[in-house]
């Protein structure tokens, strides 16, 4: 491989060095050195979040639906700074019981997760933050307490109180509205509906002067006993410290694309940082998604990952002659719990009967939901793109007559590639695309997206396991490196066909961005669906975290009621681009 040196600005700067140098100057009041980093500007670099959930009370086995709004420094206007939001569900002892890395490319995003049936009944704390917010006190994170009931475990820890419940008091009013400049109105055809009936809702958003507003709304319709708090208001919930305190050290970068995977590469022999080492991050799979980074003086590296789901990562020096090493990854989630944790759960005696019903509903739903949605095929996976985009040659093995070995395939079928043997070892070479000569240096050889330099092992992969070979017979530039050609062997399984590295490599499963989770509810537009024997006992009838009003301030949605009769709460909450917020609470009866 050819290393290109001095051909580009190679910024091997420690993140801490950069940030401390740049930001601490500001904190020390040296604005004159960096006018763009005045105290005022740094205020704008602060961000805050607001968490919404479809309700407050859940039964284990149910889904928690979440919306997160990104707000600007003053916590007033929707903003779009960091693109990754970390959401954790913490137990009363501060232990995370669920963790999500949510990709939020826009000003708001949504997520969902299922509550494990191993959870104990009690109050849990949802907290949300960004990587950039980890530079500031944890009290600036966004929090929301939710209550969880596990009917299958001891419920001794749940307190019971007999009082005038908030909900009962609310029942005297059919509609409660809170507004901080945003007035929401919802019109139903009627407030009483039958089971499996279509409900059409028209919404209007206005400012306090009556002008229409384009607002970002969330809508939740749930069983009333599960909705115990209507105080949700975006601006009330924003926690902000008074500003950037002098001496605050910024050690975390904002994540402006995907998750930042950072860590250190250290020598196994002396635990010293491996400085200025060119390393490659690969993800095991059929698509080559390689990134290259030159470690800094501390042996630190930073990669951007915008993949979702659990990925198998390989981090290794590009030069296989480098000695043994080990990698320490920085934890993604904030590990301290230096903020108040939730108190004990106390339930009102007035909702116990209704709670019993929603517990039964949950069990019915968990049994029958798979049958409700079996007709819906899952979204087809979008094919992942190789970092090199289109290859010059793509050789699908099944297109050709069966040969015995990969060596034969390369000799007979693959253009521009040849195998040479030197001192008992095999090497692959790529033609330079112009004349019949080969490049002077070895190409980048990948197996299932991973840099692998033991060609003899590759040549011994059973041909029946190999799906295709891709070749680029041109020089390829990647993150400051130049490779004289690329050869990518892709197996049918996409899992490296049991190849073994001769040297120790960092290979680890890693939970990248959380996979998208969409709320689904059945429709009963035709009679056959309406008379379907599959029961529908949703406790959350409808959840829409991304409803937008148009320029005229109007929007609408529709949903179908379920089989469970009773009282439901419609809760709509929103914010305008100018930062005006408001919410609306309304009752809905299914008879």
């Amino acid at each position, binding site marked *: 491989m050819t290393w*290109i040196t*001095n*051909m*580009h*600005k*190679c*910024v*091997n*700067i420690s*993140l801490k060095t*950069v*940030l401390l140098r*740049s930001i601490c100057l500001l904190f020390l009041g040296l604005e004159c050195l*960096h006018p*763009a*980093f005045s105290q005022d*500007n740094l205020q704008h*670099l602060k961000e805050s979040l607001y968490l919404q959930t479809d309700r407050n009370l859940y039964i284990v086995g149910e889904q928690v639906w979440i919306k997160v709004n990104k707000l600007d420094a003053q916590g007033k206007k929707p903003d779009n700074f960091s693109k990754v939001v970390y959401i954790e569900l913490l137990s009363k002892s501060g232990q995370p019981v669920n963790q999500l890395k949510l990709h939020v490319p826009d000003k708001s995003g949504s997520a969902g997760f299922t509550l494990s049936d191993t959870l104990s009944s009690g109050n849990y704390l949802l907290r949300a933050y960004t990587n950039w917010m980890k530079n500031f006190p944890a009290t600036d994170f966004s929090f929301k307490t939710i209550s969880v009931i596990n009917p299958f475990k001891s419920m001794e820890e749940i307190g019971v109180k007999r009082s005038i419940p908030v909900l009962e008091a609310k029942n005297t009013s059919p509609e409660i509205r809170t507004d901080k400049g945003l007035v929401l109105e919802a019109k139903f055809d009627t407030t009483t509906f039958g089971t499996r009936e279509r409900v059409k809702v028209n919404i209007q958003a206005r400012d306090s002067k009556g002008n229409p507003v384009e607002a970002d709304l969330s809508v939740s319709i749930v069983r009333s006993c599960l909705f115990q708090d209507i105080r949700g208001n975006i601006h009330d919930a924003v926690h902000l410290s008074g500003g950037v305190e002098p001496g605050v050290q910024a050690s975390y*970068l*904002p994540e*402006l*694309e995907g998750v*930042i995977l950072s860590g250190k590469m250290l020598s196994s022999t002396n635990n010293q940082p491996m400085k200025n080492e060119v390393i490659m991050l690969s993800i095991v799979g059929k698509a080559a998604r390689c990134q*290259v*980074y*030159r470690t800094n003086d501390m042996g630190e590296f*930073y*990669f*951007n990952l915008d993949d979702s789901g659990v990925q198998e990562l390989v981090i290794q020096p590009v030069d296989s002659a480098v000695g043994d090493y080990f990698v320490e990854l920085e934890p993604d989630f904030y590990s301290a719990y230096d903020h108040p944790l939730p108190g004990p759960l106390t339930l009102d005696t007035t909702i116990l009967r209704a709670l019993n019903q929603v517990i039964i509903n949950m069990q019915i739903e968990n049994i029958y939901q798979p049958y409700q949605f079996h007709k819906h095929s899952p979204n087809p996976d979008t094919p992942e*793109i190789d*970092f*090199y*985009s289109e290859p010059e040659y793509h050789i699908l093995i099944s297109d050709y007559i069966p040969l015995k070995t990969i060596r034969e395939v390369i000799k007979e079928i693959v253009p521009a590639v040849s195998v040479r043997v030197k001192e008992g070892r095999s090497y692959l070479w790529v033609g330079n*695309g*112009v004349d019949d000569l080969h490049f002077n240096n070895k190409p980048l050889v990948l197996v299932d997206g991973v840099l692998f330099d033991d060609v003899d092992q590759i040549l011994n992969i059973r041909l029946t396991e190999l799906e295709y070979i891709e070749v*680029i017979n*041109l*020089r*390829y*530039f*990647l*993150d*400051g*490196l130049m490779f004289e050609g690329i050869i990518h062997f892709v197996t049918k399984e996409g899992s490296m066909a049991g190849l073994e590295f001769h040297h120790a490599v960092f290979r680890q499963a890693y939970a990248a961005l959380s996979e998208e989770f969409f709320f689904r509810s059945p429709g009963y537009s035709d009679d056959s669906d309406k008379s379907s024997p599959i029961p529908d006992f949703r406790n959350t009838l409808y959840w829409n975290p991304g409803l937008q009003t148009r320029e005229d301030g109007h929007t609408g949605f529709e949903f179908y009621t379920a089989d469970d009769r009773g009282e439901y709460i419609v809760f709509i909450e929103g914010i305008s681009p100018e930062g005006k917020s408001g919410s609306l609470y309304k009752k809905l009866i299914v008879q």
Partner: protein
Amino acid sequence: MLQDIYQDVLHPSDALLHGREYKVYFDPMHSKVLIPENPNPTASVLIRNKMYQNVILQYDTYKDLLVYQNLNIRINNLITPVIINRNIIEEFTLQLPSGPARFRYLSFPEDQEGLLSSAFYEIVTEGVCQFIIDHSAFRKVEEGRVAYKYKTERYIINAGVITRIRGKKSLLKALTDEAAEVSAYLKRSNILVKRADKEQIKDVVDHYLTLKHL
């Protein structure tokens, strides 16, 4: 500022150096493929939300490629141009003889491509009614040798309907719901669509949008 720090830490190498080398496949004496013809450090490109200005870029109108020249990248003492990987380009601007031209990749579903295929197009106006210019080249055998000829075609995409603009008739067809008003505007402004430059067509589209209150 933070954006710059982020880019420096996450992507410390030349972000434009991401792709394969570019091989010249045409005879520059008899073909015009690359625009602008004379590469100067006057172009800009937006990659990962960061604008890189005053760089040397050329657009290969035949192969639909953006070619970058870093004068420091020399192999055998020859500057090696690099094709910037399309996946990372958000947009780029070239200084053409007709003025600055901003390009963006437009995708059209393969089964609905019709007049246009997915490629880089010059975006003159955006929104509901888009005015775009297709800079392309076609291959031709001339006096026994292969030559590539450069051409431009103008298109309006109005509410999803693509119309090639070759004259007044096609322009009025593209803006059919305000055709009478647009026709009157052409007359008032002495615009001859066939010979009009892009600024004049842009004015017509802007006038149309005003009529539509868009």
